[in-house]
């Protein structure tokens, strides 16, 4: 798609020429003990995965409230990924179980209101699953790329502005 691929106001517009692919911006919240370590392992193992993700390390996926997901989407992210330990393996015992409860319904409500549900992804990636992490990122980026830029959460130029 030609023109600029501004992903939300405040973000810098990245101009791309005719024929270039849309590169989505994905914000990934990764838990410190499993998913972030898994991402590290993918790096150390030289596994290739798309550079579209911007990682935010949190101590536990249970810390991720729906507000953070919404905020990321509002601030211009085209997609959000939340990844934590597998159920039963949480470093804090049950944090990821709360995540699962809290965020399940966020996705169904987003979908109900007509927003593409694929903009919000979740995964369980353990510290030893570098390969899975790379796959999760690839899948997420491709799913969000198909959806195009996030327009519903961002405002057009305001009346009165330049």
């Amino acid at each position: 798609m030609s023109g600029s691929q501004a992903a939300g106001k405040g973000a810098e517009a990245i101009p791309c020429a005719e024929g270039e692919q849309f590169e989505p911006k994905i914000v990934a919240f990764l838990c410190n003990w499993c998913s972030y370590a898994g991402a590290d392992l993918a790096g150390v193992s030289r596994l290739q995965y798309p550079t579209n993700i911007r990682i935010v390390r949190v101590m536990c996926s249970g810390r991720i409230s729906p507000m953070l997901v919404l905020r990321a989407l509002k601030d211009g992210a085209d997609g959000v990924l939340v990844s934590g330990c597998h159920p039963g393996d949480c470093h804090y015992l049950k944090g990821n179980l709360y995540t699962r409860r809290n965020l399940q319904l966020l996705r169904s409500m987003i979908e109900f209101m007509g927003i593409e549900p694929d903009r919000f992804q979740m995964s369980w990636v353990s510290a030893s699953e570098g390969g899975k992490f790379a796959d999760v990122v690839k899948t997420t980026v491709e799913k969000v790329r198909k959806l195009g830029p996030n327009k519903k959460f961002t405002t057009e130029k305001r009346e009165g502005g330049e």
Partner: protein
Amino acid sequence: MSKSILKKDKVAEALSALGKVSVVYAPVKNKRGLVEYKELGKDASTADVRLDGKPDTPPKAILFPQTELLLTYKKEDGEFVVTPAKPDDREKVIFGVKPCDAIGISLMDKVFLGGKFTDSYYKARREKVTIFTIACDGPLDSYCFCPSTGGRPAATDGSDVMMYDVGDSYFVDGITDKGKKALEALKGQLGKPTAEQEKRKEEIVKRSESAEGFTRKISDEAIAKMDTSFDSKYWDDVARRCLSCGACTYYCPTCHCFDINDEKGGERVRTWDSCQFAIFTMHTSGHNPRAIRGQKLRNRYYHKFKYSKDNIGRYLCVGCGRCIALCPASLDITKAINEVK
């Protein structure tokens, strides 16, 4: 072109004619049954325009938008570049305004244009707005009480063109120079009034003067009692069922409090605020002199009836009754003041 007749079946044509020289706003019924001022598109005749009855929203938002960009700023070469926003200063006609709302606009003018400082954004919009008011013949519904606030169903304050319903037509009168000029666009739709039509118009004006038919009133004695009732527990009792939702302030033709915030992307934005919201008047120290509902409600009623009279010589309330109709907790400003202790 003062004193003419516009037949009701020519109104759609008239709106189109006006639409050729200005943007036209008229009361339109929306999907959910609410009548509100909408900008008519090119083909004004297809909109579901409602000229009878009181629109659910006042035309306040046309002159004082709920969200307004004031300026943008960005860093360029290490320096901040500030760019003021350009307010919407297109020529506009607001058609089908009721006298209470027109008075409301004239009161907003006092706030934003009177006094030492002029609000340039409001001014830029206001200068280009022409108001076509349709006079009422008595109260439009059980919530109306304009005579108690110094208004009348056929009052002309704030209006540029007055229209009176005289049967199958409107008697049209250009009041101000702006109004007379606007009527020139309607040469093709306006006709000469008959003596009978002129008589009917005079009767409407007469009935309006005597404020016939209004059952809802606020007595001057009650308003005078407010002078000594500031510290009374009465206001806490009245506000006990208030939910602080802010609907009354948003729908009031004269409520004008606003907040200014810097939002992401270097934009400074002005938005409506409400004295009923929880953190209104909260100081940065954490103290809030008006934290309790009774205090907030009292403040609103006093602002509309006492402080405004003291400061600008007129009540800020125009008696449209929308706050009463809308309140989810059945609060009633007329009852509250009439029973003030």
